[in-house]
């Protein structure tokens, strides 16, 4: 947990290529409000606006969407689901005929009768209609204008205003999801058409061949929507070939046809691009707003008293910073210091004690900034702004706000800071970390060659044994076997990392460095990384854990249940020449409030010592008791999540046998 927080650079500018900015700005709000052509829910007719589409659906297909929606009291999400449901059904042609649409209408009317009830119960209803599935929140058509167009009318302004935020935020998230997993959600024809690989085309062909004649015809009609033009083109070729019934051949042909299409396909591209641009205008704003909201929570939580108490009471942490600041006078004496995310201001006060000539403490929480101001005043370190030269001791200035937005009030020149200090580390180093803000401060305010404290951060992994789990406890509860409960605990832990202290004796393997950051030079993007590691059994753990029942081989097998992740941050002699300091959160050093991060394997891996590897053991799969592994190798990826300030961890593990046979488990994703 980092002390107190700063926002990272706005995530929109972070995630989008800079070129798009101009597009957004050039686009402007007018364009965003322009009506956009949309495809009918049921046929391939394109109509000039969402409104027109709904009108067309009512007239041509007896499906009055807006009325149904109003009658059934569908909320925003339900409406999204319904549109996507219909689109996906039409695309799949599972049951999409006039009767099916009647059925759906029926069920919606039914719901209309119960709509009050439904609202109260949320999703508690026992018989949930198929379209209510959350998978239908994922747009089927990319940039489907209908998804924005359904409540252009009817609702009063207030409501709409409020909804707009939610809606845009939700849509943004959904679209992001979609782009991340386009392949896996390829139920819609358009998705398939766009990914455009041979396999997908084969699938596409199958899907297409299964379509009903009428829809095929419609798709093939010359009035087709640009977005589906590729599909339409194929469709005509397919229908002619259909009787030959040679799917492979068709696939190839389609492939060729499509590649030709897309190389001349500038015409259909245009409207699509425009749609994207419009979206981005909205999404840029939404992203900003979202970042602000998340930050609000974040800074809100950091004003919470308990966290500061916990952090100050974490002696390992506070001592390390104190030593780095107070015991390095050659660095701090007369230095200009900036403290990013100052919290109670303790690091700034250490710096002031150490003889800094100017200390600028910044915190994103105005409440904490006020507290820090009070504290620095009470201790005689606050700079007296009324008469700047009056007190020799008053060196500290506290600013409230995001470091990225404080240019106006910063009492120091750009690149005027000698020492930048921050306690930015989160759980697993990077979870909820404010590292991006620190790096921003470094690039903008730190002198070239200035000191950053800490200046290194390293992440490690090691394997842990059964003691790192609660399995033993559940194996004997008052003499009863509750193993299944323990297994459930472990199952839970295979999906979500656990923050807990791992006892040094439960670490059973060597450790491996998975990432080293140099804070003086790194970029914010470096926090997304993939790393290989190799772990071997520690000699000592053979003696302590006698779990083997393998009589035949008399080998001590030790089970590895997962990986423990920790980090060290260094105040190295590069800057701290008088007294370098290492702040470690390892299982082998005194515990800190960060504890360690525990990633549990889906299946434990049997290990034996390397020196025993001469004996031939291959009775079973590698990593099982019959064939214990001599090493665990793997690949771990840590990346910033699409959720602000969160991270995703993925882990692929292999067991390597003494004879170098390898068994690899499927990749595990840890959701934080």
């Amino acid at each position: 947990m980092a002390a107190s927080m700063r926002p990272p650079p706005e995530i929109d500018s972070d995630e989008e290529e800079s070129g798009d900015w101009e597009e957004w700005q050039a686009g402007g709000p007018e364009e965003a409000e322009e009506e956009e052509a949309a495809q009918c829910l049921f046929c391939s007719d394109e109509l000039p606006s969402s409104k027109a589409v709904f009108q067309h659906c009512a007239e041509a297909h007896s499906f009055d969407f807006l009325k149904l929606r109003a009658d059934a009291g569908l909320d925003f999400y339900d409406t999204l689901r319904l549109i996507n449901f219909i689109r996906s059904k039409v695309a799949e042609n599972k049951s999409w005929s006039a009767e099916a649409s009647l059925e759906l209408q029926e069920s919606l009317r039914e719901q209309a009768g119960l709509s009050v009830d439904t609202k109260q119960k949320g999703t508690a209803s026992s018989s949930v209609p198929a379209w209510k599935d959350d998978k239908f929140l994922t747009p089927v058509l990319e940039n489907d204008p209908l998804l924005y167009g359904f409540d252009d009318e009817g609702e009063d302004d207030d409501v709409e205003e409020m909804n707009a935020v939610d809606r845009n935020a939700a849509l943004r998230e959904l679209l992001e999801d979609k782009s991340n997993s386009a392949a896996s959600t390829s139920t819609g024809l358009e998705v398939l058409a766009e990914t455009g690989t041979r396999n997908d085309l084969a699938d596409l062909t199958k899907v297409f061949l299964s379509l009903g004649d009428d829809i095929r015809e419609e798709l093939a009609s010359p009035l087709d929507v640009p977005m589906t033009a590729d599909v339409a083109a194929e469709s005509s070729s397919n229908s002619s070939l259909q009787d030959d019934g040679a799917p492979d051949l068709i696939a190839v042909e389609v492939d060729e046809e499509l590649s030709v299409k897309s190389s001349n396909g500038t015409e259909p591209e245009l409207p699509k691009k425009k749609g994207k641009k419009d979206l981005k205008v909205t999404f840029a704003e939404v992203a900003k707003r979202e970042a602000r909201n998340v930050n609000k929570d974040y800074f809100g939580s950091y004003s919470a008293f308990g966290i500061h108490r916990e952090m100050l009471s974490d002696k390992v942490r506070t001592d390390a910073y104190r030593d780095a600041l107070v015991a390095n006078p050659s660095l701090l004496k007369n230095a200009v210091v900036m403290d990013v995310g100052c919290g109670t201001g303790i690091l700034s006060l250490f710096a002031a004690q150490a003889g800094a000539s100017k200390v600028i403490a910044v915190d994103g929480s105005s409440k904490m900034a006020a507290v820090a101001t009070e504290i620095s005043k009470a201790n005689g370190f606050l700079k007296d702004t009324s008469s700047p030269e009056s007190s020799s001791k008053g060196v500290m200035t506290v600013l409230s706000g995001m470091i990225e937005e404080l240019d106006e009030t910063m009492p120091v020149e750009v690149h005027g800071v000698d020492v930048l200090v921050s306690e930015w580390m989160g759980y697993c180093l990077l979870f909820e970390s404010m590292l991006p803000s620190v790096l921003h401060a470094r690039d903008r305010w730190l002198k070239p060659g200035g000191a950053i404290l800490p200046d290194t951060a390293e992440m490690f992994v090691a394997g842990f044994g059964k003691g790192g789990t609660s399995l033993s406890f559940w194996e004997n509860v008052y003499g009863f076997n509750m193993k299944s409960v323990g297994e459930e605990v472990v199952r839970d832990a295979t999906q979500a990392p656990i923050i807990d202290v791992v006892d040094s004796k439960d670490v059973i393997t060597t450790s491996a460095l998975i990432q080293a950051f140099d804070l003086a030079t790194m970029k914010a993007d470096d926090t997304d990384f993939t790393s290989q590691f190799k772990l071997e059994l520690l000699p000592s753990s053979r003696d302590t854990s006698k779990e083997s029942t393998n009589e035949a081989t008399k080998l001590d097998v030790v089970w590895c249940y997962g990986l423990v992740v920790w980090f060290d941050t260094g105040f190295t002699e590069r800057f701290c020449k008088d007294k370098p300091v290492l702040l470690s959160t390892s299982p082998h050093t005194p515990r800190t409030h960060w504890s360690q991060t525990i990633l549990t394997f889906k299946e434990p891996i049997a290990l034996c010592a390397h020196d025993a590897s001469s004996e031939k053991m291959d009775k079973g799969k590698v990593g099982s008791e019959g064939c214990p592994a001599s090493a665990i190798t793997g690949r771990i990826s840590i990346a910033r999540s699409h959720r602000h300030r969160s991270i995703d961890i993925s882990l692929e593990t292999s067991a390597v046998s003494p004879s170098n046979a390898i068994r690899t488990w499927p990749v595990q994703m840890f959701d934080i």
Partner: protein
Amino acid sequence: MRDKYALTRRSASRLLPLVAPPVAAAAKEGVVPASFLEQDRAYFQAYSHVGIHEEMIKDRARTDAYRDAIMFHADFIRDKVVMDVGCGTGILSIFCAFAGARKVYAVDASDIAVQAKEVVKANRLSDVITVLHGRVEDLNINEKVDVIVSEWMGYMLLYESMLGSVIYARDRWLKTGGLMLPSFATLYMAPVTNAEKYSECIDFWRSVYGIDMSAMLPLAKQHSFEEPCIENIAAESVLSWPIVIKQINCKTITIAELESVKADFSVSSIMTAPLHGFALWFDVSFGTRVTQQTDLQSETSLGRSLAVDHDGVEICRSKKRAKPSDCIVLSTAPDSTPTHWAQTLLYVYDPIEVKQDQEISGSIELSQSKENPRFMNIFLKYRSGTRECVKESVMR
């Protein structure tokens, strides 16, 4: 990311949605029949996290008391039908099976029931114990039961307790003359002094690494004392004999009685010390009441309600005298083995200095919150010497 220890019994309730539908009203109108209310769902989900069960089972005082009580009543339980309301991992059901029960219905609405099934199977008791995954209120069991066992007690006895479900099960399935385990429950309160906690919360900020952080004091006080705290307090910190706030006979208690619990008190301090707050705790006893008690106070007497206070004090004093063979008591008092319930502390913002024998009086009312029926409103009035204060808090 989840902190293994963050999920205690208490924090389970924090997972509940803050704005809840009006449960009682909705239920009365029958709008929401068999399906779970969102709130219930969250509650049961919280309890399906195994961490809570680990905490509860590891509470030996609790689990031992239940085991002893069940074995103590083995003669009654043998060949009988038992219902375990809120069975969790199923441990109480297993105890009952070992005590010779012919049939045990183990009921739990949270997903832990899935594990309970596995546990029962692993211990080869599937022919005796039937695990039912659902709310007691939704069950269909076509036989009456002889024994209802349940570990329903929450913090301060009544906070987030399952007593309502136990009462429902009792009224619907318990045979006349059946056994309730536990059988009696009593909620106590006493004024306490706790200089250590006070200084830990307040004085910490006066010097942090030599830095004066008194600016944090208002926040610190608010954080430390606004809401009830769950913590163990030393027996020496208790300033008077306990006050009985509520006695519950599990065979006769009604849900209406539990909506609001109110008691006046007047005690005298046994020492000179600053009054820092009030501690609440409870005990439950299993089986027939201690003999001399029943003699003293006929349970069915009409004068019972008037005599409650007297009766309660008797119970609490005789508890110490009671031999385990007379009655098994699970106590969460400051002088008992610490349990996962600890005690519930209501701290006052500014301590009152009280002298030995000085009177401390007032009233306390615990009532269901309108905001969320699982929350509890605590309204405490207290006076001593010239000071008279009111403290209102919500246990969330």
